């Protein structure tokens, strides 16, 4: 590329030594760098699509975070095996978010430094709300795959956030409607995790109990990470409820269940939310109660068996609901990019807001509610499966109902806009 110009116009006819070295050096440098130039130009045509994934990997939600990463990884690997999206490779950057402060830092870093096209993930409501604020400020689409807070779909909702994960109202309405229809359980005692998620869940489960005409006989806030529940159990026992309603999360839920069984499980239990992975860890003997599930690997729906066997081949265990959510979240985002031929957050948001129907490995198709960006989808009611009937150690639940029933609209389990008002705001 570099041509040594003849300096002959001045009639000297030869290069000075110094000039020669300078030019030769420049030529060498150009020759050396040119292959890099070529590859740089090639890569420009193939700048990978970048997804920023954020989730707690340690602490009391770490177990779920592990499944989130597995689900997300599989979705990206499958997309790349099919030749990428828009002719581009899909890259994913994983970040650990042990608490809300770090979550904000990591979300900001993913957008500003790693230049990701979208954010996805999070499980803790406290961290999730904080990440949602970052997404709004930096104008990036954020797909929530793991936190339930109604506030995030209500007073603190914003245009940039979409929710694959169910909201607390969906969980409690699903299980509450079932409990009142099938059994006479009107006096409830609440045990609630003492942080954003639990408070939110307590509010909506109380509202539900009022709507259903039941009464509250007791309620305690429990600090997260409590190792010993014996004192709480004594208290519940003394109050004699028809039903103990748990608004706990993560490992706390399973620790509680073990100890509840230890005290003879004196009353029926139902829970506001349930993550199957946690219950795999409790041991079958400790399982009790009626629970809502966002997804379970034994539901009968097209594509589920195939997804489960792909996941098992890759990771050695079936996917839980968290793995499903992160897998689904990434699939939805990539689908939107393909449909809009763009990675621009504003375009993707407009696409989702038009309400296209998606196949999400459930028996009915889902869409995002245009007023609060919640994925409208069926939920499931599960009870422990008899050990004799179980196929393997992962097969712990009997799916006893899909809610809302097939004759009802899927929006039945969502709150109404007046129950949980949300101002999405502008782009």
């Amino acid at each position, binding site marked *: 590329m570099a041509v040594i110009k003849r300096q002959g116009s001045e009639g000297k006819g030869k290069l000075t030594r110094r000039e020669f070295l300078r030019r030769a050096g420049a030529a060498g440098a150009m020759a050396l760098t040119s292959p890099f130039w070529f590859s740089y130009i090639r890569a420009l045509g193939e700048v990978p699509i970048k997804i920023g994934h954020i989730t707690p990997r340690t602490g009391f939600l770490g177990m779920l*975070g592990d499944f989130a990463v597995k689900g997300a990884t599989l979705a990206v690997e499958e997309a790349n095996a099919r030749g990428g999206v828009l002719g581009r490779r899909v890259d994913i950057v994983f970040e650990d978010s042990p608490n809300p402060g770090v979550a904000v830092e990591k979300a900001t870093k993913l957008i500003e430094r790693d230049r990701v096209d979208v954010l996805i993930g999070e499980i803790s409501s406290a961290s999730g709300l904080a990440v949602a604020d970052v997404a709004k400020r930096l104008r990036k689409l954020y797909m929530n795959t793991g936190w339930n807070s109604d506030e995030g779909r209500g007073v603190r909702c914003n245009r940039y956030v979409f929710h694959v994960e169910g909201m607390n109202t969906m969980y409690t309405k699903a299980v509450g409607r079932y409990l009142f229809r099938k059994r006479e359980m009107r006096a409830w005692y609440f045990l609630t995790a003492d942080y954003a998620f639990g408070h939110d869940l307590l509010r909506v489960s109380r509202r539900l109990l009022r709507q259903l005409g039941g009464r509250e006989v007791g309620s305690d806030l429990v600090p997260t990470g409590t190792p010993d529940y014996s*004192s709480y159990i004594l208290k519940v026992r003394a109050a004699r409820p028809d039903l103990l309603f748990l608004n706990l999360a993560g490992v706390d839920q399973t620790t509680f269940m073990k100890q509840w069984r230890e005290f003879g499980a004196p009353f029926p239990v139902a829970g506001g939310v349930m993550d199957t992975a946690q219950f795999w860890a409790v041991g079958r003997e400790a399982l009790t109660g009626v629970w809502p599930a966002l997804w379970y690997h034994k539901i009968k729906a097209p594509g589920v068996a195939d997804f489960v066997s792909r996941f098992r081949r890759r990771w050695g265990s079936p996917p839980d609901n968290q793995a499903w959510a992160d897998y689904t979240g990434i699939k939805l985002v990539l689908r939107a990019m393909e449909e809009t031929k763009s990675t621009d957050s504003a375009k993707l948001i407009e696409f989702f807001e038009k309400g296209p129907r998606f196949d999400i490995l459930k028996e009915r198709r889902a869409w995002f509610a245009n007023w609060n960006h919640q994925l409208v989808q069926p939920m499931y009611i599960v009870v422990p499966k008899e050990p004799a009937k179980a196929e393997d150690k992962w097969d712990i639940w009997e799916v006893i109902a899909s809610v809302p029933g097939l004759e009802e609209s899927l929006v039945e389990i969502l709150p109404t806009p007046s129950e949980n008002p949300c101002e999405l705001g502008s782009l």
Partner: protein
Amino acid sequence: MPELSLSLLIQFIANGFVVGMYYTLLALGLSIIFGLIGVINLAHGALYALGAYAAYVFSRHLGFFPALVLSPLIVAVLAMAIEVTMLRRLYLKDPLLSLLLTFGLAMVVEQLLRMIFGAAGLPFDIPQRLQGFVRFGMLPYSRYRLFLLIVGILVIALLWWFLERTPYGRIIRAGTRDPEMVRILGIRLAPVFTAVFGIGAAMAGLAGVISAPLAGVEPAMGTAVGTAAFVVVVIGGMGSFWGPVIAGLLVGEIVSLFVLLYPPAADASMFLLMALVLLLRPRGLLGERWEKFE
């Protein structure tokens, strides 16, 4: 809120005692290492988790009761290897160094457990023979927790006898208070410190085994527990055998009563107690004046 009756209050006080025994078991190992070697062992929670994981492996092949004995021994052997190869070099140096070492060890152990056994918790059931409950009048109480109470009392008695009544115990106590004099008497102290670290680690391991059926087994299980153990040691004070025992029982009672009366502060209640004790008795409840730490 259930009606506050005398029967309920008695139940809470009795249960608080059992919870307290759990806290005592948690803290004993930390207190022994702290009090006798002067090392603040930040890997205490990690050793506790190691004990639980060892019990998980052993109990699948041998059953719970052999695991109850073997797991603390394995943890002790590992800990003594750490003492001989690493920790020993730091006794005479800046205390910060042993803090850093044990802090690092805690992280390494937690991540190793995660690598080997996975991030998910492992199922660990109460052994068949200890399932179910014992009835006190109308009120059933968990059989396993009564077992915990008995193990706690036995372990405390055994440790007290060993430290206070045997010649080995005397050497340990003398060696920690006046190492120079003990050396002049012709006793090598290096193996004594190794043994003390081993005993403390075994206690952490034992607490891990005992709590595995109650709280489950997962890589991060040691983190929260480590904090509680520190609180108990600080309340109890150093240099006294009975300090952590009394402090553990007190913490159990206060946490239990706060659950009854005002649960949102149950977690904070032990820190409140600690602050109060530190205000009134800066050396802890039974802490003695000790030249080394003044």
